[in-house]
């Protein structure tokens, strides 16, 4: 009776996060107004770049899972494979797919101001006509 709650509380000291014993770190760290995001974007023939639907990127309805999938692809060097997989499924209005990391001022973006501070392109691939 005492052991299980005691084990559950261990991450309070260690900070170790796992499943199902967790330190619950989500949203617990101090977050600045600039942040880095991973995304898959599409560029049309007019050069307009916009985010592609999450369903094309990952078979999930959870944004954290989708973003972690893109982050993993960038981290383990398979961004091009992800790019080509997405490019095979986008519509004809998209000419080029980009797997990117972007740094935004998140508050400015929601207020409608220019927010993009940096874009790192990890992979680009053309969409077959």
């Amino acid at each position, binding site marked *: 009776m005492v052991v299980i709650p005691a084990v559950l509380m261990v991450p309070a000291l260690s*900070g170790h996060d*796992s*499943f199902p014993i967790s330190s619950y770190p989500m949203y617990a760290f*101090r977050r600045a107004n600039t942040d880095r995001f991973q995304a898959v974007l599409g560029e049309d023939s007019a050069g307009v770049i916009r985010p592609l639907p*999450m369903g094309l990127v990952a078979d999930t309805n959870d944004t954290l899972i989708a973003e972690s999938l893109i982050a993993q692809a960038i981290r383990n060097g398979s961004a091009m494979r992800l790019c080509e997989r997405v490019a095979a499924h986008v519509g004809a209005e998209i000419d080029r797919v980009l797997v990117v990391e972007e740094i935004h001022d*998140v508050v400015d973006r929601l207020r409608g101001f220019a927010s993009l501070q940096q874009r790192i392109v990890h992979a680009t691939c053309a969409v077959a006509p």
Partner: protein
Amino acid sequence: MTAGRLFPTAPPARLAVLRILVGTFAVAYLLINARGFLSLADADPPRFDPVGVLSPMTRPVADAALVSAYAVAVIAGLVFTIGMWFRVSGPLFAVLLFALCTYRSSWGQILWLENVMVMHVAIVGCSRAADALRWSPRGHSAPRSRPSSEAYGVPVRLAALVTVATYVLAAVAKFRLGGLAWVTSDSLRNHVAATAVRAQLLNVPASPVGRWLVGQGWLFPPMAAASVLLEIASPLALIGGRLRNAWVALAWLMHVAIAALMFVVFPYPLFLVAFAPLYDNEHLVTAWNRRRNRRLSD
């Protein structure tokens, strides 16, 4: 805390009602998230990053094993919920749900929203939770009434401690990772804003409430203070009575606010199942029986 509070006695119906509540929720969760579990069969093996008890694994399981485990888990969950063959269905469902949820968190993103559900099912599944309110093909639900016992009270108390511990841990994490500045700075506003921007960059709807509220920065430090205080105060819910009711109401409102501001949904507390072990739920059965008897006599 007195021994009576740590090792309380309870009627078998209290634990049985908890079994029905967590079982119903867990089965519904499995069914609603079927795609999330089963699509892992097609996931890229390099993404596999096992956590928890699966940490020693070096590669994903075979597709057939995943699909079979999911199917058996759903069936075991249904049998668990109605209390049949509980000596088998209880531990079996607990183990399968534990394994499936750990596996689902082993692809680069731990899904914290499943922790409490998994632990509650494990506690209930390894207890005598089918000594009452058990469905039987012969048509009677309880072969004989049993007296109150620690065997029914302790698992419910343990589940309540798990619920409370998660909120305390969440508060500790904020102080450990963010410090007092998590409350006094714009941190919470930035979390809400970042969640909305992430949604925009993935081309899914972001909360309009969150987007609007980000413009009212002064609101966030008081909201952050209130949420941390609420999390720290969670052990008060173990006392029961009005303190518990007030805490549960505020905790539920906090989850409603998180859902409204960030479109981040924690269904287990939102559907109140996470808080069920804090209550003497056998009264639900008494009230239901009374209403049924009145209807029959009318």
